[in-house]
């Protein structure tokens, strides 16, 4: 199995980090495994962690009277959670494992302190997460367009 640093280096989102920055980030990560249905994050709870999926599949969900609604699913190499970056550091959605998910879990509170101390690391991480946020915003816009809705032709 790849080391945490190797796994991070292989992800698209961390491709701009230097070797030293990857190593610093890797030191704050730990390997975790979640069983089918278990929650990596809980809506409204403190955003103490973020994750990078190594192998598996995570559903971002919110509860509705009809049951849990899945907004998006995340897969190998994807990050889970960005609420740790912004006050009030509260998680917005549930993140639930679909099947067994192997991930790297990061101690967000410690990483925030490291980013405040090391602005270069903080800047690169912010760039990495901003690119993920932009990609997901674009995907959400496409979903909102409802492009598969009915056309009105003959």
């Amino acid at each position: 199995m790849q080391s945490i640093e190797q796994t991070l280096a292989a992800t698209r989102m961390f491709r701009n980090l230097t070797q030293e920055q990857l190593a610093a980030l890797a030191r704050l990560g730990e390997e975790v495994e979640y069983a089918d249905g278990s929650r990596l994050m809980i809506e409204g709870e403190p955003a103490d962690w973020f994750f990078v999926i190594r192998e598996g599949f995570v559903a971002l969900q919110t509860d509705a009277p009809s049951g849990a609604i899945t907004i998006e699913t995340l897969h190998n190499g994807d990050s889970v959670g960005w609420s740790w970056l912004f006050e009030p550091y509260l998680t917005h959605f549930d993140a639930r494992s679909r099947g067994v998910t192997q991930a790297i879990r990061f101690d967000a509170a410690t990483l925030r302190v490291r980013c405040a101390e090391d602005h270069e690391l903080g800047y690169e991480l912010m760039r990495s997460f901003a690119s993920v946020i932009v990609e997901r915003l674009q995907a959400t816009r496409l979903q909102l367009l409802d492009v598969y809705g009915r056309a009105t032709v003959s």
Partner: protein
Amino acid sequence: MTPRAHRVVSRRGETTDTWTLALEPLPGEELPLFAPGQFGMLYAFGVGEIPISVSGASTALDPLRCTVRSVGSVSAALCATAPGDVVGLRGPFGSRWPLAEATAGDVVIVAGGLGLAPLRPAIHHVLAHRNEYGRVIVCYGGRSADELLFMSELEVWRGRFDLDIDVIVDIAGPDWHGKVGVVTKLVELAAFDPDRTFALLCGPEVMLRFGALTLRKRGVPVDRCYISMERNMHCAIAQCGHCQFGPKFICREGPVQRYDEVEPWLKIGEL
């Protein structure tokens, strides 16, 4: 130009408003041979004629299949036909998927919604000539689980070891346990060699543009991305001008076109 009479052999509901009709020519008429990607003009007698994607190869072993969504008077009349009814058919018309050019490399098929229908014959062709291609990947996106086409066939394809198929939906209910998001996500996740990949895309035009953009980001040269376009085809022989798209007639130069050859006009609103 004259429609040939075909009998509806069977009618299968794909979704609440989409049906696949199996057709066979009346005795004495020849079975038209549609290449994957080509379209036909289907005529509901007394109602009208519309362009229809051919979703099943017209071979001696497999009847001609057309998948129709009921969105207007003609398509509603076609969807309401029963086995034994007779409809008119003109064709084949238009261009085909570049399946000969794609041999020896990977094939990435990106379908959105009803766009799986014109890609189905291409998938059948690739699977029938499986040794001629590298990795074969099908990325299929739909609005929701109950609006996916060819569900039983998707399950069969998913069981094959020589085909990577993945499905994603925009909107998921509690009973959907698959992926949720847009189809471009599947293209990002797929494993293929961009330097030797041909990509075939069909779906709503917005999806085609974003699909091509994602393929480009993955390194697939834009001149190896092909899309199938829909326009309001009437005559199907490049005479009436209804389907004109920039300098092209979709019924003649299309529906399958190389992406870089139509990209400039895709950016012009309402064209």
